């Protein structure tokens, strides 16, 4: 776990104002927005503090704030990208905002993936469904300095072909010969022209059987997928301390005060959201 660097002497609850400069529909109900800071000083502060894995609170005044990761990499800090599923009051309001509209952002908060520790190692990224966005931030942060890492494998599964997010980037990764991409959809989720695998992520991962030798795994997905994928990684010989994941608990402040995101004694907003599987194993499992 790393130190938090963000401690400017200002109203900690006051959000930055961001302009939506682009938006893109990824999958049914899932949208990506690219946001730009309006205040250069706030942008500078973001550039100084943002590292891959950190999260923010995105909002629309009158509706509230919602917590999700920064989906863009730490190697591209001119903007913030976020990807979210329209499901509640805030995400519905965000989904109805158009290019040119203004939204609010607080962050970046939390800890990060320590990618310097991954230098020289092989990387295995595993994501399920809407959890590709946090993984994608790390993926690009590494691909933008590709020479520093060994073999890169990405295993990504979604319920159906339509539910795969970042389809254009998946194509790009598919074409790269320095990235090994394994795509899968759940049984029944395939389309007639689907050329990739059919199966759940843990099974597909075990079939792909990436070597655990000198390899770090980054795993993001719904709790049930994480649980089974951790078993698969164990079978493949991965140590828990070499598997990184993120916890996504409900938050209001993001600052360690509002009291709801903790799992046991661990405040996800300050000590997370990035944890190794070894750290997660020490938490009270019933509270996850």
């Amino acid at each position, binding site marked *: 776990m790393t130190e*938090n660097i*963000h*401690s400017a*002497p200002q*109203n*900690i*609850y*006051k*959000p930055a*104002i961001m302009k939506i400069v682009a938006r893109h529909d990824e999958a049914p109900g899932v949208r990506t927005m690219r946001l730009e800071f309006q205040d250069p000083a706030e942008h500078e502060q973001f550039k100084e503090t943002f590292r891959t894995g950190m999260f923010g609170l995105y909002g629309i*005044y*009158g*509706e*509230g*704030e919602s917590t999700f990761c920064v989906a863009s990499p730490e190697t591209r800090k001119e903007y913030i990208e976020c990807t979210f*599923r329209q*499901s*509640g009051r805030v*995400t519905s309001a965000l989904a109805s905002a158009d290019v040119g509209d*203004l939204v*609010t952002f607080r962050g970046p908060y939390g800890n990060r993936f320590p990618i310097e520790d991954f230098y020289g190692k092989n990387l295995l990224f595993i994501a399920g469904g809407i959890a590709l966005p946090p993984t994608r931030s790390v993926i690009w942060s590494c691909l933008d300095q590709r020479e520093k890492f060994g073999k890169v494998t990405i295993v990504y599964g979604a319920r159906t072909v339509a539910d795969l997010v970042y389809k254009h980037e998946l194509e790009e990764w598919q074409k790269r010969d320095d990235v090994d991409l394994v795509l899968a959809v759940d049984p029944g989720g395939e389309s007639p022209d689907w050329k990739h695998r059919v199966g759940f992520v843990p099974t597909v991962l075990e079939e792909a059987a990436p070597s655990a030798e000198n390899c770090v795994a980054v795993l993001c997905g*719904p*709790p049930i997928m994480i649980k089974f994928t951790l078993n698969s990684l164990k079978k493949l010989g991965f140590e828990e301390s070499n598997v990184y994941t993120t916890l*996504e*608990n*409900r938050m*209001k*402040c993001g*600052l*360690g*005060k*509002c*009291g*709801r*995101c*903790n*799992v*046991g*004694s661990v405040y996800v907003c*300050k000590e997370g959201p990035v944890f190794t599987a070894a750290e997660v194993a020490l938490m*009270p499992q*019933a*509270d*996850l």
Partner: protein
Amino acid sequence: MTKILYTDKLDNCVERWRSAGLSVIGPVRNANITAYRPVGSAADLELSQILPDRSIKELFFPQTEPMMRYSIKKDAINTEECLPPVGPRIIFGARPCDASGLAIDDPLFGWDYKDEYWFNRRNETVIVSIACTKSDEFCMCTSLKLSPDSTKGSDVLLRPLESGKGWQVEELTDRGREAFKAIAELLTEGAEAAAPTAVVAEKFDADACSEWLRNPENFESRFWKEISVRCIGCGSCTYLCPTCHCFDIQDEGDTFTGIRRKNWDSCSFALFTMHTSGHNPRSTQSARWRQRIMHKFNYFPGKFSANSCSGCGRCTRQCPVDMGITETLQEISKLSQ
């Protein structure tokens, strides 16, 4: 010889403080509820009750408070911060447990990120506590390494005289000394004895409880279900608690103008931790009660080196189903033997 403040001078004190620009706050009884409220004169003060029904926290962390006002125009969003309009103030007649509660929460509101809404009020408030000479069966400060005359969190501590006609004055901080300079000539030097402080029996062994709570095996003990089966999840205990600090952030208004508010929230509520997906990490009342106890006596002391409880006993005293921290910790004390 100690400084003595006689009760018949109290009205003059209130006047002096008010004319020195301090607003005076103290326990006031209104509509059958005693709470810390602004007072105009000493006659407004209700100092005989064991402790006010409502805790002191609402003067620093109100039930609801605006954090910012927003207005949205075609190409601009304007955020106007609403920092608390406090001004210097003095709280006269706080109970030591209430004052301690504030000191317990300071590190929480200050770790890494400083909450101005809390600290602006803390920095402008002088707290004059009165040691307790009465207690009831719910008081439990002594079980938490505090006492009826704890000085933690207070700027001045007053000890009631045996005669009942005033208080010995113990100035504890510069802020307290400064406030008492304004009433210096109303104080008398004297040797009058102070009344004995209240006897508060130890009800549980907090250290043994914390140790039991730290043992991961006890996290899924049947005990949690049994002890919390009566809990109706009303949240009263958390609202009355001087140290419970959980809050929600909500917007009130429309697309053009409105207020973003910080509101009390409670770990007793089912929706508190509910994820968007419908998954709820604390989906049962027993999991939520466990969280409350764990937080106060295991997680919080682990982070901030103090139990998140000052022993005021309000949670138990006013619980509609007669539950409370005391009973739970007494049971844990037994289990840990």
